[in-house]
């Protein structure tokens, strides 16, 4: 389990865009570096990220090596009613983590 910080506005208006900010603790090892013995350090990055709102797709992101450690993602979404945002990401080790956050629409 990696640490994840998710921020959504407390007040969200129906059908108006709001920002979702996500900070994920991850080394994002590029696979280009070598260790002190000259061995390649295997690539270990978050390769996919998706966000759904009550099961409906908000966005899918495919990620590549040129992203720094501890990636910060910020995107907009629109909601009609209160619900649950589900954020799901997978890294090269095949570890999938799911985080949920409730949003309140007024």
């Amino acid at each position, binding site marked *: 389990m990696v640490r994840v910080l998710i921020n959504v506005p407390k007040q969200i208006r129906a059908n108006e865009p709001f920002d979702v900010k996500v*900070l994920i603790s991850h*080394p994002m090892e590029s696979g280009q570096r070598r260790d002190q013995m000259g061995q390649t350090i295997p690539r270990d990055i978050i390769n996919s990220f998706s966000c759904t709102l009550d099961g409906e797709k908000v966005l899918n992101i495919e990620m590549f090596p040129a992203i*720094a450690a501890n990636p910060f993602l910020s995107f907009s979404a629109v909601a009609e009613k209160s619900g649950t945002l589900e954020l799901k990401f997978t890294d090269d080790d095949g570890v999938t983590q799911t985080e949920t956050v409730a949003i309140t629409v007024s």
Partner: protein
Amino acid sequence: MKKAAPDLYPVMARLDRATGINTMERAMARSSRAMTIVRLILIPAALLLIGAGERRSGYDDASPDTRAMQDDDNANPAFLWVKQGESLWSVPSGTAGKSCASCHGDIATMHGVAAHYPKFDPKRDRPVTLEERINICRTDHMGAPAFAWDDDKLLSLSTLVGLQSRDMPMAVEPREPFLSQGAALFRERMGQLNLSCAQCHEDRAGLKLAGSLIPQGHPNGYPEYRLEWQGMGSLYRRLRNCMVGTRAEPFPPDSREAASLALFLAVRANGMRVETPAVRP
């Protein structure tokens, strides 16, 4: 030195962020004139390096992007460490079965503590940094092994404690003989490149080293998230990096030299706003 902690500082800092006008700096320049007099009595004049009015935090010279990252707690990656620190705070560790919270209670009780570090420790007869203080708690009171100096858990805890003093003025006791020893080390040429700290961070502060701006070297944001490191680091990590850069043998983390240099740098930055956890390039 007397603790100069007007309650207005956090208010002004918030105001600054809201308005974009640096009331804090102006107020500091005003109060620093008064503080200079105090300082002249307490510290030999020779130690006054950079006049308080000209002091610049690394924040002042950072790019707008980097500043925005530091200003927004949701974008500042250091808050991943704060989160880890919060969960560690109440987890018992060691043979005594105690956690930080067992003795200190809520983390809010740490308000203002970090602004006074490095602080003299009578048992060790030298100043200790906040990270060392946490390790002393572990070995002496919790019966737990000390963390390595660059352990992520140690940084998480010191970041969490440091955060409780954010926006307060630094108020470190200018204790002798450590202050003088630190000042001497600051000016001492070292390493194969034969460079002293002062040659860059005093004489050439504001100029460039390769493409990067040379900061004045104030330790008011540690532990900080450095984009170059892609992680958190303590002041000791910074000192170590600089010393490796001059091709000198770094002072060990628990040495009197490292402590004295840290104390000197902190006293030099007294009155500046604590920015922990800062974001730097």
